């Protein structure tokens, strides 16, 4: 409960702010504008980073991959593990959105049209459907089924280069488990159009049964894996997965380990934001310091009078701190409203940055770089907004109150 004295001082602080409403508005507006800009930049980069992360994760990378030790070491697929109930049970948590046991084979296609390296993924169709929406992105033909025999799903870009249609046969060259060079015929069952051109050229899908027959020379009748690709909401699930695989010899890799180039891009963006925040913080603190100081020094006579009638210095401090509180509240609410309005609109419409690349779609490190960026406003950013406003205003007010009261003491 607030006692009477505090209530009175709070009212006093409010009236002091209103006494120079224009000036108070200017101070609040300067702080709010700086905060809006700073948070907008954060929201913009959060949006960009999240789009980059999504693009990487959707290249069948997942947020995490749990890999068998040999595959982890050298991407050697020759010792796949069984994906039994014991392994499946390791990844049962509400944070784990999807898991797909996958077998990986490096192959190539060589025709008069040219030659290209392929990554042949042996998947369990039903589990893979939960991981990636490839099955929804089939533009011709159909997606895989569990019992298909030597059917393959290819990307539209690959189909275009090698002039392949649904029903055509594709000759896959590869080395099998014992290292023997082999060429096998696969039937094109479906063509997908998804993610980047690079992805469509490289990733092809077959079911586990076909993969095992191609690489191991027989179907074990079991689900095997070189890696389990896992989708979560974000990277925060790492400790959970890490502790889940602790009793086993399986190894964990996050998308940042699997695509270090884009991971560094994100780190670089974060570094830039931190740098920008410091600079904006310093600028706004220095900028509002003078008006706040003038605001307090102008009241020196009034403070002297109050001091003469017995108001203690601690009460002046209390008034000052209430002013900070009120200004923080006002500026914070104003900033938050502006942010919700601006970012709310932009997060729906996006900001078009395609002019930087003359409208051409750009791919980097295997992903399509976003041309239209959708800023993201989160609760954390609003919290940061309030903290930032509080910090900036507190520094300016505390310094101003201190210097004014110091002068008051000297003059008394």
């Amino acid at each position, binding site marked *: 409960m607030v006692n009477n004295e505090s209530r009175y001082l709070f009212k006093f602080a409010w009236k002091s702010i209103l006494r120079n409403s224009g000036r108070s508005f200017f101070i609040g507006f300067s702080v709010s*504008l700086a905060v809006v800009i700073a948070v907008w930049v954060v929201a913009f980069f959060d949006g960009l980073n999240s789009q980059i992360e999504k693009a990487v994760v959707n290249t069948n990378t997942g947020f995490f991959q749990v890999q068998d030790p040999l595959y982890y070491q050298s991407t050697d697929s020759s010792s796949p593990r069984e994906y039994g109930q014991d392994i499946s049970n390791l990844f049962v948590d509400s944070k784990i959105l999807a898991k797909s046991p996958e077998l990986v084979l*490096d192959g190539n296609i060589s025709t008069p049209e040219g030659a290209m390296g392929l990554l042949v993924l042996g998947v369990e169709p039903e589990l893979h459907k939960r991981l990636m929406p490839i099955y929804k992105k089939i533009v011709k033909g159909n997606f895989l089924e569990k019992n298909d025999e030597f059917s393959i799903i290819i990307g539209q870009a690959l189909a275009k280069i090698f002039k392949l249609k649904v029903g055509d046969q594709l000759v896959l060259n590869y080395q099998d488990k014992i290292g023997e060079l082999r060429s096998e015929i696969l039937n094109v069952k479906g063509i997908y159009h998804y993610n980047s051109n690079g992805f469509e050229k490289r990733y092809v899908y077959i079911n586990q049964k076909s993969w095992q027959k191609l690489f191991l020379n027989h179907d074990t009748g079991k689900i095997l894996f070189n890696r389990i690709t896992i989708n979560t909401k974000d990277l925060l699930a790492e400790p959970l997965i890490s502790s889940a695989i602790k009793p086993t010899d399986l190894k964990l890799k996050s998308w940042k380990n699997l695509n270090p180039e884009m991971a560094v891009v994100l780190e670089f963006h974060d570094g830039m934001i931190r740098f920008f925040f410091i*600079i904006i913080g310093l600028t706004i603190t220095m900028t509002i310091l003078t008006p706040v100081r003038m605001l307090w020094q102008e009241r020196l006579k009034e403070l002297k009078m109050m001091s003469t009638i017995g108001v203690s210095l601690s009460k002046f401090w209390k008034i000052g701190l209430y002013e900070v509180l009120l200004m923080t509240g006002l500026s914070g609410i104003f900033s938050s409203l502006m942010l919700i309005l601006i970012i709310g609109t932009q997060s729906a419409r996006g900001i078009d940055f395609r002019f930087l690349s003359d409208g051409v779609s*750009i791919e980097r490190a295997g992903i399509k770089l976003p041309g239209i960026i959708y800023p993201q406003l989160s609760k954390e950013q609003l919290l940061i907004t309030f903290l930032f406003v509080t910090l900036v205003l507190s520094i300016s007010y505390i310094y101003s109150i201190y210097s004014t009261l110091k002068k008051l003491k000297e003059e008394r």
Partner: protein
Amino acid sequence: MKGFPFLFKFSYRNLWRAPKRTLIMLLSLSLGTGFIIWDLNFANSGSKEVMKDFLNQYAGQYHITNVDYYDRVNKKEFNNYRTMSDNQIQDKNLLEKSTKRITAPVFVSGEKKTLGVLLTGLDVPKELKLTTLKSAVTIGSFLDPQGSKEIILGKKLAQRINISVGDEVAVIGQALDGSVANELMKVVGLLDFGGGDLEESLAFTQFQTAQELMSMSPDMYHQRVSFSVEEENLPKLTGLAVTTWDEILPEIGVSVRFIDNFTWIVSFIIVLVISLGLSNTLMITFFEREQEFQCLNIIGAKTSWVAFSLMIEVILLGTTAIFIGIILGHAATTYFYHFPINIEIFTGGKPIIMGGMIIKPLVRLYPVMSYYWQVPLLIYFFLSTTMIYPLVRVINRSKNAI
């Protein structure tokens, strides 16, 4: 103009009436100016150093090729059957400044795996002179200029096909005469690109080995790569195409342009925030002296005279601050020219990977002369805008003085 020296003196003295306040305003504007100049110099030098480091490693500033070698729309696609020779280059100086290369999309076969790579045949002595590719070989050695049938692979690729230095790999591709190209090559070194994509997709061999593998005549090759950074005007060659790195690697160009644009946006924001604060302070300062202005009006000073004196005050303050800011910005730029900045500070010490390669640029800051007038102009513009509202209010109030 007669009264100007008096007006100037009057305005100057007014500034020193509240020295602390003036100093804080001066400081915030100077630091802002200084920071913006430094920041723009940093962004410019940073982009240049990063690109220099990246391009000097392998990609080069521009490629001279057959007109049909690179696809007209997508420069990532190339037609390996389109070759060129030195005879097609009239300006023989270009031969000195560039190195010739042969590109061959091939499969490299190890004990357990066969993977696709782009094998590049290098003129080894020239590459050693013009590029820093050698420094990326961290295990084993670079190609022997006198040797043949040697190959350098990326670390990641070697790991995937289970190959070490000293082992042999089979290289299989399609020669330009349509025959199957195959050769056994000895791995002499491994490239470390920090785990970037190119560690898996590039391999290098001697020029002659690649020429033989691809069944090419001795004078033919695919690219002539120039590393000349100072090259302002691209050479104009008849019958050949000149393609810049920006066209070959648009993703890198976009990333660099993105950072440059971001720096300008930050500069505008800083000036805007400072201007708002200044406007506030100026307004308080002007209103505080309202009585004084009214007194001046009473003793005969025109409103325009008062307004003019206030303008001189702001211009004096602004010019001094901008001058100090330029000195500060230039001093900081000069300091970081002598003590370059490692941009890994932005990634928490993690190496930067660009275009599939690791780069370790130390950014040495160079002053860009155009910033030294562009930034003051920007600040003067905002300062003038800042002054309008307080000035209009002072003029309006002065009208009612008598």
